């Protein structure tokens, strides 16, 4: 079975003339980009950003270990936060799909609230307000929990759209076989819904990962916070930011690749079945 990408569905495949045009503009764009890059590099050279003192500490193992420790914390916070967001999002989705009116209203309100409020406000809430209540979570939780809360409403809505996309006939067939609504939800509806929304869920994981860069606010030693320490120690802003940006880009690129692979694989198993 051939895979139809969204691009294939939106555009007809280009003819010879269109191909020529595409090649021309691709070339032009590349040249412009190269020129821009050259300009930036030249500007850096002029302002002395390539001076050895800004870069030499990257030759030291301790620098990379320090950044590595920060990266681990970042990944830990992002994964823990996403896991919590998934659980909360799942509960909110279940709540919103219930017949009970109160449960539905509460879930809807929570979903809208968490989606509407910027992550930064939740972080400041955990940073400034929560400690005053007497509960003193560690710096790690002060960044992980607000990121999770901020993401759970989006996760809930993604899951709900997946559930709604499962054809009604699937539910009716399961009902007609004597499955109860709870059983059929977990056996028939949710497994299909989950497959539909994996790309949205991974997109949300990337957002959580990016949100954790606010960890410096609560002085949690994540990648960003450690980068800031390096910056002040070596007075080397541009080089450190550049390296850290590349690391973030690489991780998110990797996540997107995993997402694509997973989506493709699931679609394939759906299409070809488990050939045992």
């Amino acid at each position, binding site marked *: 079975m051939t895979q139809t990408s969204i691009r294939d569905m939106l555009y007809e495949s280009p003819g010879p003339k269109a191909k020529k045009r595409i090649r021309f503009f691709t070339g032009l764009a590349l040249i412009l980009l190269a020129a821009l890059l050259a300009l930036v590099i030249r500007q850096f050279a002029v302002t002395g950003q390539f001076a050895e003192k800004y870069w030499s500490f990257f030759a030291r193992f301790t620098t990379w270990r320090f950044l590595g420790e920060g990266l681990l914390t970042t990944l830990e916070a992002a994964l823990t936060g996403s896991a919590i967001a998934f659980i909360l999002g799942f509960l909110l989705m279940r709540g919103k799909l219930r017949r009970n009116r109160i449960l539905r209203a509460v879930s809807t309100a929570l979903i809208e609230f968490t989606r509407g409020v910027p992550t930064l406000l939740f972080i400041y809430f955990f940073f400034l307000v929560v400690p005053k209540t007497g509960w003193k979570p560690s710096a790690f939780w002060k960044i992980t929990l607000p990121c999770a809360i901020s993401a759970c409403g989006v996760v809930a809505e993604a899951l709900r759209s997946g559930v709604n996309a499962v054809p009604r006939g699937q539910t*009716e067939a*399961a*009902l007609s*076989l*004597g*499955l109860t609504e709870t059983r059929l939800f977990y056996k028939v509806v949710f497994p299909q819904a989950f497959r539909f929304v994996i790309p949205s869920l991974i997109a949300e994981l990337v957002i959580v990962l990016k949100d954790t860069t606010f960890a410096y606010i609560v002085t949690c030693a994540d990648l960003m916070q450690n980068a800031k320490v390096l910056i002040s120690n070596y007075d080397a802003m541009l080089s450190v930011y550049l390296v850290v940006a590349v690391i973030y880009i690489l991780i998110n690129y990797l996540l997107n690749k995993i997402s694509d692979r997973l989506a493709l694989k699931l679609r394939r198993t759906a*299409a*070809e079945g488990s050939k045992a």
Partner: protein
Amino acid sequence: MSQSETPVIELKNVNKHFGDLHVLQDVSLSVKKGEVVVIIGPSGSGKSTLCRTINRLETIDSGEILIEGEPVPQEGRKLAELRSRIGMVFQSFNLFAHMSILDNLTLAPVDVLKIPRKEAREEAMKLLERVGVADQAKKVPAQLSGGQQQRAAIARALAMHPKAMLFDEPTSALDPEMIGEVLSVMTELASEGMTMLIVTHEMNFARQVADRVIFMDGGKIIEENTPDAFFEHPASERAQNFLKTIRDH
């Protein structure tokens, strides 16, 4: 009435509305054990709705529906248990899209009837053998032809050892060359004594297997007769017109 005469399916003065639309108007019918009843009638006459009220996929406004003499429970485990005793085959097959054909057949027996998985698998394979799709057991529904899917769906319903089977236009979504294979599975079921209520427009099939034909129009049962009598000499003008339109096809 003695025990043996209790109908498997019985509707008494059933009424149902969709908003202002009176889809089922005082419908009464009964299907005895081993009987095959065919419902025929123009599109929109309420045939599907009638089928779906029997296992309460649609609720009713008034009247009574009895399965083996007992009223259909309104909700919960009791309702699920009743549904498990009545097989249903849909126009659009509705096989579970994310599961292999084999898993489609074992899900409910394991989950509802608590049959051990191994036993359920063995029986499922026998059923798939019977409907002629055993070689497709490991595939997912999308890989099968429509006719194969519908036969698998019939096997899935049979895996629950139903007391009766409801078919809602089981061949209407099929390409013409696949209709025969599904009808022959149904014919075989009928000859084995399965109690069946079938909505279909396949007249030859109806004449062959039906004990009775019920003609519906506008939410009402217009007439009810043996297949030969109904198809040769329909009593009502509506039935005559309807038969003419499908014969002219």
